[in-house]
């Protein structure tokens, strides 16, 4: 097979596999969040937590739930890292330093999974399992819950109740993520991914670190988390041993965000509303794949930072999907990509992670962008905009704008300060434009909760640990609070009837508007910064 054909076959298999599970998984997820009954395990958890699962919450209580749960998650994760030396399976990897523990705790709770640490040298198996693996599950479940709450805002009318956060969280974790991750882990083991409680294995006299990889690998991709069990992440032969495991991992990181558009269509009672979102995501994903793939295939040294078993197409496909989904796992080093290819992975994040975005986060982000698009369309024709039968007034548009603007604000402030700090020079791995790209990429990754890196940059000093930690926090929770406020305000409204003047949101006109808004918002915000980094590099 020529490389082009081989690449296209891989894309074909991936898309076909996604198409097969799209309906059943999307419909199943819709049922999970609408059925009344509780599983025995769920009832036990609610009893233990002293929660009444029938009690519906206002948007503010729902938001306090998200914040409270994330807060205790961060504290718990921080503490177990700081006392690692007394935990079993630590292999003399001692207590994790303060700055690193702080950064890592925020990183995994915000679904970013940015890694300022070298797992093989720093994290023992206990922290990996009871800390990092758990947050891989629950941070994804939080995203899912917030997305469902926003959809309820559209579906419900004249109520101040959005559902029960604890029920949504527990159901997302137990009924969706857990069974899928378990199956995925077994499939990955069959392809050759390792699953060991030992610290390493001897290969012809050389010790290669090992870990309980498969279990974490499965949820790392499925929950669009991305934190490697080993330093080289999905480029490591133990995490991703061959072309088939590679394709499976790409499938896993895309499957829930993609199928959620079906869930959305089901819940709002019009599947076309979901298909149009999927179409927009698919168009941008395909366009970006083409850019990255072509750029990498024509690079000066295309194999630097790539594993031969994945080839250029298998690396480009992974890179595009991991940055388009806020996953941030890597199977090749984006830092060694061409100016255009690396710039493409950066731009994927700057779109705000909605092509198709992370688990839940992708859906709520694209819905917020849809509100912005309808608002722009309303301005053009001079009508109060509507979306899914709800009027988009001052409150709704303000909340949407806050949600959209949080990421660029913290990103540009953080990257701007980092660029002028004298200590940053020593942290960079490459000179010139590419050095600036390393800084931009780091803050884009943190603020968008992606977690991948132009990994040459050394981010272990106090400035990077704390500023990137704050970017992850604000990039995660400002949009979440805004989205829940938006949901509350939508749910309180009456449904407005469809009239001749209503712009249909299932057709190509809306799709074009939405695509244009995604591209335009990113372009207007980031072109100046991109011009100095990847664009300059691509033109040199």
């Amino acid at each position, binding site marked *: *097979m020529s*490389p082009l054909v*081989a690449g296209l*076959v*891989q894309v074909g298999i991936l898309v076909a596999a996604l198409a097969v599970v799209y309906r059943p998984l999307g419909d199943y997820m819709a049922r999970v969040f609408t059925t009344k009954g509780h599983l025995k395990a769920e009832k036990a958890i609610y009893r233990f937590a*002293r*929660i009444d699962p029938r009690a519906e919450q206002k948007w503010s209580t729902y938001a*306090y*739930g998200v914040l*409270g*749960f*994330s*807060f*205790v*998650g961060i504290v718990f994760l921080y503490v177990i890292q700081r006392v690692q030396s007394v935990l079993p399976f630590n292999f003399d990897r001692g207590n994790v330093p303060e700055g690193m523990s702080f950064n890592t705790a925020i990183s995994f709770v915000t679904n970013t999974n940015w890694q300022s640490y*070298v797992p093989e*040298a720093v994290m023992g198996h206990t922290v990996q*399992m009871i*800390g990092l693996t758990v947050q891989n599950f*629950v941070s994804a479940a939080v995203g899912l819950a917030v997305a469902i709450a926003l959809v309820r805002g559209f579906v419900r009318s004249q109520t101040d109740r959005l559902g029960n956060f604890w029920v949504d969280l*527990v159901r997302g*974790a137990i009924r969706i993520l857990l069974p899928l*991750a378990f199956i995925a*882990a*077994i499939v990955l*083991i069959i*392809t*050759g991914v*390792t*699953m060991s409680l030992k610290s390493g294995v001897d*290969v*012809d*006299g050389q010790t*290669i670190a*090992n870990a*309980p990889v*498969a*279990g974490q690998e499965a949820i790392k991709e499925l929950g669009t988390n991305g934190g490697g069990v080993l330093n080289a992440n999905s480029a*490591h*032969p133990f995490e991703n*041993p061959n*072309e088939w495991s590679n394709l499976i991992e790409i499938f896993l990181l895309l499957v829930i965000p993609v199928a959620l558009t079906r869930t959305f269509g089901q819940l709002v009672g019009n599947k076309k509303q979901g298909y149009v979102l999927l179409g927009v995501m698919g168009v941008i994903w395909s366009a970006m794949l083409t850019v990255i793939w072509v750029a990498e295939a024509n690079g*000066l*040294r295309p194999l630097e*930072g*790539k*594993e*031969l*078993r*994945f*080839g250029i197409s298998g690396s480009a496909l992974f890179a595009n999907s991991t940055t388009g989904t806020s996953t941030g796992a890597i199977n090749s080093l984006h830092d*060694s990509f061409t*100016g255009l290819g690396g710039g493409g992975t950066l731009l994927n994040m700057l779109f705000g992670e909605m092509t198709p975005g992370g688990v839940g986060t992708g859906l709520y982000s694209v819905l917020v962008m849809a509100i912005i698009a309808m608002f722009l369309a309303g301005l053009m024709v001079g009508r109060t905009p509507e979306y899914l039968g709800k009027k988009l007034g001052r409150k709704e548009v303000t909340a949407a704008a806050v949600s959209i603007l949080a990421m660029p604000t913290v990103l540009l402030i953080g990257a701007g300060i980092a660029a002028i700090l004298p200590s940053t020079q020593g942290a960079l*791995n*490459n*000179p010139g*434009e*590419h050095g600036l790209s390393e800084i931009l990429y780091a803050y884009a990754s943190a603020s968008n909760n992606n977690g991948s890196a132009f*990994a040459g940059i050394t981010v272990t000093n106090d400035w990077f640990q704390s500023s990137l930690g704050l970017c992850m926090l604000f990039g995660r929770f400002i949009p979440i609070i805004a989205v829940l406020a938006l949901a509350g305000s939508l749910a309180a409204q009456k449904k407005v009837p469809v009239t001749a003047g209503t712009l249909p949101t299932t057709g190509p006109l809306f799709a074009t508007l939405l695509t244009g808004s995604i591209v335009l918002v990113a372009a207007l915000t980031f072109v100046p910064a991109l011009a100095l980094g990847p664009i300059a*590099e691509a033109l040199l």
Partner: protein
Amino acid sequence: MDNFLKQSWAGLRILLALTVLLGVLYPLSVWGVSRIPGLHANAEATDTSLVAVTREGDKYFVPRPSAATLPASGGSNKGELNEDYTKVIAERRTEIAQREGVPESQVPQDAVTASASGLDPHISPEYAALQVPRVARASGLPVEKVRELVAANTHGTFTTTVNVTALNRAIDSAG
């Protein structure tokens, strides 16, 4: 604030319950399943040909350059326009051309670039072919035999690659 504390308290209990389920029972069940004989049995990385090992001596095939400093896996993270690194690559090319006795233009890309993990066990069929004469000479094996061994360790559905770790073991057993 009261509401935040109340929700955090509930959150802590939920987190503890889910930690038992997702952080203990889940990984241990997956570990248990990985012990089932015949599933693939690579859980303990017994298939060590997954990672590259540098072997001393001219009778062995040479894997790709590695930028990893073990135990940490990883790559160079050098950008395409990094001139210092361009020099490193040029030096590697000269060195390989001399080692194999071929013009520099014949040295393939994978021979001079570092992989992402630093553990990539594979090389391209071109790089393997380049090394065959030297390996045959140093190992005393006939060129045909070495080519056969290379072919036996060449795999891949989408990308055809030669596994150096497995190939060098085959050289050992043949010699």
